[in-house]
């Protein structure tokens, strides 16, 4: 009895194997016919055309970095980097939702970009010499000036990082964070001990449990992880920054047109803040007399044609549908969000920061 049913089952399995193989071939054919969903690789020169053909921008984001790219309760991606992706989509399609997100780990982000799986990488990536020059990538600018800092318990009685002597420091393994911290302590001849963990959650839990005196990572990360401590008010972030971490969007090298588009989307967001154009008031500036604003909203000049975009009001659309830099910042990481980061270096150059965009003319 058993044996008979088993034979029938096994026969079924073999039939399945044959059918499955045929099915897989069929599927691959249909996948080819349908055009599939992921971007093809190899051909570097016409990203814009490929993006227009498939109808959306494939944007590489993080797998969950608070305030920069994380899914919200409704299942939408949100954050500073995500808003940038939405701005790129708006410039091309006049629709901020024409984005597909690829949540990438730090290890594979560059391979993913180079292989053509994604069109633009907006994943809090630090612009460094090596990445810009040796990896075949192109950084188009900086959308957040970050830097590594220290967080300590207030009752440690430390007010400056130079007072951190004989301390244990919690951090992530194998990141530049660990190396930066080591450099800092050695340069200042301070005694320290590194306690490293694999995941951010573990580092926070260890610091919260008192296994170390100091927690070090990028200051935006400190602000985010601080919300996960059992009593955030007992901790403070020290004022010193020990490393430069300019975070910016990245594209593949070798497609100048696409790099220009992404670069000018970033610049447009910043220029909009300079011109005090917001999503709320830009409609009333459509017929402005100010030549700077006229160029920005597309009433003057042929900037879209130069970039290969269809709509001369591309910058207008970005501000109307996504917002200017200040609006994006306040929505995602600003003082009113859980991260509560003040503008600091990320304020406009006219307001004490270093955010600066070349003129649009």
């Amino acid at each position, binding site marked *: 009895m*058993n*044996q008979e*049913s088993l*034979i*029938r*089952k*096994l*026969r*079924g*399995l073999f*039939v*399945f*194997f044959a059918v*499955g193989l045929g*099915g*897989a071939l069929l*599927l691959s054919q249909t*996948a*080819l016919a349908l*055009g*599939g*969903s*992921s*971007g*093809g*690789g*190899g*051909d570097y020169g016409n990203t814009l055309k490929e993006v227009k053909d498939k109808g959306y921008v494939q944007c*590489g984001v993080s*797998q*969950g*970095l*608070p*305030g920069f790219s*994380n*899914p*919200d*309760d409704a*299942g939408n991606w949100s954050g500073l980097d995500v808003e940038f992706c939405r701005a790129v989509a708006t410039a091309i399609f006049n629709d901020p939702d024409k984005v*597909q*997100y*690829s*949540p990438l780990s730090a*290890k*594979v982000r560059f*391979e*993913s970009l*180079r*292989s*053509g*799986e994604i069109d633009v990488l907006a994943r809090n990536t630090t612009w460094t010499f090596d990445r810009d020059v040796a990896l075949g990538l192109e950084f188009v600018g900086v959308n957040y000036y970050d830097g590594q800092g220290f967080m300590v318990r207030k009752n440690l009685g430390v007010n400056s990082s130079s007072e951190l002597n004989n301390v244990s420091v919690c951090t992530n393994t194998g990141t530049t964070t660990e190396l930066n911290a080591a450099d800092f302590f050695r340069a200042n001849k301070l005694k320290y001990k590194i306690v490293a963990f694999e995941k951010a*959650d573990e580092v*926070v*839990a260890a610091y*919260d449990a008192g296994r170390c005196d100091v927690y070090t990572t990028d200051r935006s990360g400190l602000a985010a992880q601080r*919300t*996960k*401590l059992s009593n955030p008010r007992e901790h403070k972030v020290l004022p010193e920054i020990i490393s430069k971490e300019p975070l910016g969007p990245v594209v593949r090298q070798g497609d100048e047109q696409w790099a220009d588009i992404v670069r000018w989307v970033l610049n447009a967001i910043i220029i909009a803040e300079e011109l005090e154009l917001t999503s709320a008031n830009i409609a009333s500036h459509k017929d402005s007399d100010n030549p700077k604003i006229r160029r920005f909203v597309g009433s003057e000049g042929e900037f879209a044609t130069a970039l290969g975009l269809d709509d001369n009001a591309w910058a207008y659309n970005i501000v109307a549908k996504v917002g200017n830099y200040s609006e994006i910042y306040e929505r995602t990481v600003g003082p009113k*969000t*859980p991260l509560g980061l003040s503008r600091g270096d990320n304020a406009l150059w006219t307001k004490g920061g270093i955010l600066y965009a070349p003129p649009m003319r």
Partner: protein
Amino acid sequence: MTARAALLWLRDNLFFSWKNGVLSVVVGGFLLWVVVLLADWFFVSAVWNGGIEDCRLRQDGACWPFVQARFRQFIYGFYPDVERWRVNIVMLVFFVGIALLVWERTPFRGKLVLFMLCVFPLASWFLMRGGIFGLADVPTGRWGGFMLTLVLASVGIVSSLPLGIMLALGRRAESLPFVKAFCVVFIEFWRGVPVITVLFATAFMLPLFMPSSVNFDQLLRAMVGFILFSSAYMAEIVRGGLEGLQRGQYEASDALGMTYWQSRIRVILPQALKIMIPGILLTIIGLFKDTTLVLIIGLLDFLGMIQAGISDPRWGAPNVPFTGYAFAAVVYFVFCYSMSLYARYIEKKFSAGRERRP
């Protein structure tokens, strides 16, 4: 009477000497302590209703509102809200189908097996992927959560078994040297490469070799990677089962004048399968948990969605990460343990009446 029996059992098993008694008390106390701690964290001190503010106020227990708010995301990933009925249909058919297959008195069980193995996977692919028959197109990049875990694991499990059997038979086919060589090389290659490397290669290296007009869905590529990888493991388990049989079984079936396939299907495999069950189960459970490695190639499975959810700064509280991971652990445990129970049942059923007598 029963109380007396219980006392006797206690004396015979837990307290038959003073050393044994001390050990029983210590271990029993420790277990009790762990259970009480866990129950307290999971239920008593846990926050059941409200939002993040409540979780911040009561940090000694789980923060279940987080799981409540994110539950649908954990199941469906980024699958669009209005299209979720498609996933629901597929999951319903999947679980009902499995239940019917497990229940032994289901009529037409053989046909159901064929349906679940051949028709169902293709049908559910087209239903969930869309783009035809007027269904909205849902690119696999938006698939995620538990649904993605199920898709990857079931495809991997179902395809790797027949492939593994073929490879194992091929590896033992002495009269067909080329087939044998191919199978050996295939098995050793895939067993010698870490699964992360396989996924990485299929995701990022394959596109570099293909012309840009050829687009092969990323999830399909990951699936193929998983199938090839797990079939190599399955092949070695099947080979172990085949080797475990006495030569006499092979010789006897040959002596009866059976052809190769008759002998394999009617005599060898049914007996070998019984020996293989623990090994097969090991691979299946391993595969079920390995699916989480698709994180590498930018797909968020069940665990990936939970980790991404934890990163939301609006859910910043010390108990949120623990809650997320605890939820993942419970779900994984329930699924793996039920697979384990079923495998144990099958094993018992196959051995009934066939136990070798001493």
